[in-house]
């Protein structure tokens, strides 16, 4: 199966996602330039972390106009699994593929550390291999990961079980003490209504080998492989 990782100017975790899917997971992977219009036969699309266009203006704001984004949109509309990690999540928000927006971390500063994240939903292509309420140790590294949606939107997200990951304690309890950036409802990641597009701020690809301190993130990428068997969508 094939992961296509989109490279925006300023992406900096593109190769990390490529490495984790190809070298660690052993699947096919390709880096796709943002000016291309073809996803190279992707089974799964990853929008990686980084600072697309410097994150000048707003995170993800300029990247959503890249030519490749029409293909990503079409792929998502057909039910193809799309994962946005960190900056990739921000791009998905700006592109309207996921609801809500990001504002500056509540304590302003860039936050780089390992956090515990609780898996809330296991019926998305990126969590099917997780146990319900499984807690993953994943690095975060962002200045704007403070998730916002207006009250009605937020209520809808919760009602539709679209909150996929929440910041938690190591034991899995969710509270403001374990919320690193002020995200509403401790949201670390969400999915769209169709559940095939997922975005999260933590970096599963950076936690895919024990040598790096945690291999907890691999289950997110492995989920995609597992889910693909049961998913049916057209690639073109």
């Amino acid at each position: 199966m094939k992961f296509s990782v989109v490279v925006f100017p300023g992406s900096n975790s593109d190769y990390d996602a490529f490495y984790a899917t190809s070298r660690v997971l052993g699947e096919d992977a390709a880096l796709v330039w943002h000016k291309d219009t073809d996803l190279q036969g992707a089974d799964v699309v990853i929008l990686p972390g980084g600072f697309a266009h410097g994150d000048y203006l707003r995170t993800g704001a300029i990247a959503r106009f890249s030519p490749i984004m029409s293909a990503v949109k079409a792929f998502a509309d057909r039910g193809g699994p799309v994962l946005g990690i960190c900056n990739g999540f921000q791009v998905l928000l700006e592109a309207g593929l996921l609801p809500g927006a990001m504002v500056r971390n509540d304590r302003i500063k860039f936050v780089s550390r390992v956090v515990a994240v609780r898996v809330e939903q296991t019926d998305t292509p990126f969590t099917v291999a997780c146990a319900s309420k499984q807690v993953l140790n994943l690095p975060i590294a962002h200045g704007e990961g403070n998730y916002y949606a207006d009250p009605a939107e937020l209520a809808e997200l919760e009602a539709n079980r679209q909150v996929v990951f929440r910041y938690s304690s190591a034991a899995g309890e969710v509270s403001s003490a374990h919320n690193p950036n002020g995200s509403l409802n401790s949201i670390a990641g969400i999915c769209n209504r169709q559940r095939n597009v997922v975005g999260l701020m933590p970096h599963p690809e950076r936690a895919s080998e024990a040598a790096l301190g945690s291999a907890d993130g691999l289950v997110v990428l492995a989920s995609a492989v597992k889910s693909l068997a049961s998913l049916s969508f057209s690639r073109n």
Partner: protein
Amino acid sequence: MAPVVIDTAVLERHGIKPDEYDRILQLMGREPNLLELGLFSVMWSEHCSYKSSRVHLKTLPTAGPRVVQGPGENAGAVDIGDGLCVVFKIESHNHPSFIEPYQGAATGVGGIIRDIFTMGARPIALLNALRFGSLDTALARRIFEGVVAGVGGYGNSIGIPTVGGEIVFDEIYAGNPLVNVLCLGISRIDGIVKGAAKGAGNPVFYVGAKTGRDGIHGATMASAEFDEKSAEKRPAVQVGDPFMEKLLMEACLEVMKTGAVLGIQDMGAAGLSCATSEMGSRGGLGMSIDVMHVPQRETGMTPYEIMLSESQERMLLVVEKGREHEVEAVFDKWDLHAVQVGEVTEGSRLKIHERGVLVADVPNRALTDEAPVYRRPMQEPSWQKAVQKLSLSDLGSAPPAQSAFDRLVAVPTIASKRWAYRQYDHSVGTNTIAQPGMSAAVVRVKETKRGLAVSVDGNGRFCYLDPHRGAMLAVAEAARNVACAGGEPIGGTNNLNFGNPERPEIMWQLGEAVRGIGDACRALGIPITGGNVSLYNETEGQAIFPTPVLGVVGLLDDASKTTTRIFKRSGAVVVMLGDNLGEIGGSEYLATLHGKVLGVPPALDLAREASLQKLIVGLIRDGAVESAHDCSEGGLAVALAECTFDSGGIGVTADIALCGDKPFLSAEAPGAKVEGLSGDWRTNATLFGESASRILVSASDEKLPAVIAAAKAAGIPAIVIGKTGGDRIRVTVDGKAAIDSLVADAEKAWATAIEQKMTGRAPL
């Protein structure tokens, strides 16, 4: 260019001394015009020419079996096997960071990254060594806050992890903070590209940000002392653009793979002047450019401004004639537009044109190799001997060990730097094996089993008390930290931060420090492959402590074998390798508890240090030890506590033998005897003295005999001092209770001290 009378005022504005001007006249064979004078001014500045330090730097050991590239290029390179080399260098941005902390630090990071990818290497790690005034002052807090944000702002965006560093707080740096940044990259040995012009007739390309009027005379500013007037002559500070640099980095690495690039150099200090003259003189050729082709951000720029601008994120390339389109195509892909600005020429002259009219014509070696070299007078400071005298009876009574310990773990220089490094992305790139907070950073080398351990260290207090020994100690500490992660030291880089070299005492400090670095590097087998010199670090005539910062890179054949300072489990035996001599001269203990910087720094036996490092590297490789930690600031007691921090609360019980009462009588430090070392003083010297060449390890009962045997074979004392376990740090000295703290309490004080100073409140 309009003729300008070059009078003393003009020369002064350009920082050119009368005898230097005579030399210019001689080299030129005529009077220079203003543009030419500008070129000499920036190229002969201390920052670019190393005119005061060069004679000393020449004495450093630079050769070794692994050295691929020594000093003289944009960065040094050392062979790490498999056809690969590690490319690294350290660079300072002290003065700009004082004027504008965020941008000063950010552009410092940008500058050193360019030095690395210019060589054809992909940067994979950043470290920094920072010095600030006391965090009890608003000024130091503001500078610290800005510098940390700037370091993070640039590195995070470009996606190179900041994996380690060190931060020291001392009022001596209040008006002159230090920001030294080390970058390290990986390249194939045969992929190294140099900053030399090749082949007359080959086109010269400019790529990157447009040239503006920023930082004109920045290089000369970095070489001038601060005084009240400098507030007025503040040059425009450059604003870093990490996004542009990211594009440049990716594009340059891609374009170098085509083989069409024959030479490349970044435009840093002295901008286009430096890049054109250095590339020409390194290649033994000339260069001819027309400033009309240089992309400009502002209108009406003169050739003088264009040549001297220090706009960031720009590169100059020599391209093989006929292959221009290959280069242009790569840059176009990245939305960067490379433009030809000139060509390589026969001869050795730098010719600058403005719309075809020749406006400057200088032999390029006159700007580079033939810059003045000074053998400046050196004189040991009159106060040097006095500050080496340490009489404890003058300091009153010693505090109880427990209260000294409580103070020390929370003093910002010793406390956890997590407030800072949590603002640095240290996991991007998926190579980081030992994160910030460990003794050395460890990154793996993808596609191999290898790893690189890196550490930056320096102790200004030691160097103030004895620059020669202090510099040796800095080398030893950096190498020891690397060894404690399992890395065999293979190369070093250094940043010399000193005051005004025109003062003989400062020059003496510099000369002594360089001699110390050389002595230690020769003994430890560490070639110096590059570095940086930052002089005139003074405010209102007050120089900083002489502060050489050493960056040492070590190689692990198997990155998975690395270890950290942290105790891994209860029930392990704790062993001290080395001697506990109780040397408190220049210690953090004396500074924090008694407000004194006095005495001689700890003695250093280089042969023993080398054996110790070999020993620890072997023990780690063989899996004989579970943790390893160097003893430095705060001594044995603080080092023991640090082994318990981040372990999840694993405590330790240890008994330490009282140090001797004449520990200062080593042959190397005659006259350094401390008077009054008895009672509490002796207990505190035992616990908080900073004797060199000591490592704390933990090992299983089964491995203990092997550890002892290996130490014996190496001629290093190995003393079992205690056992891990429980939830307290309990230390006795000769059986007498000295320290007894809950790990959780000590760790909280240590982990949150800086955050509390910065926010004025207890952290969440």
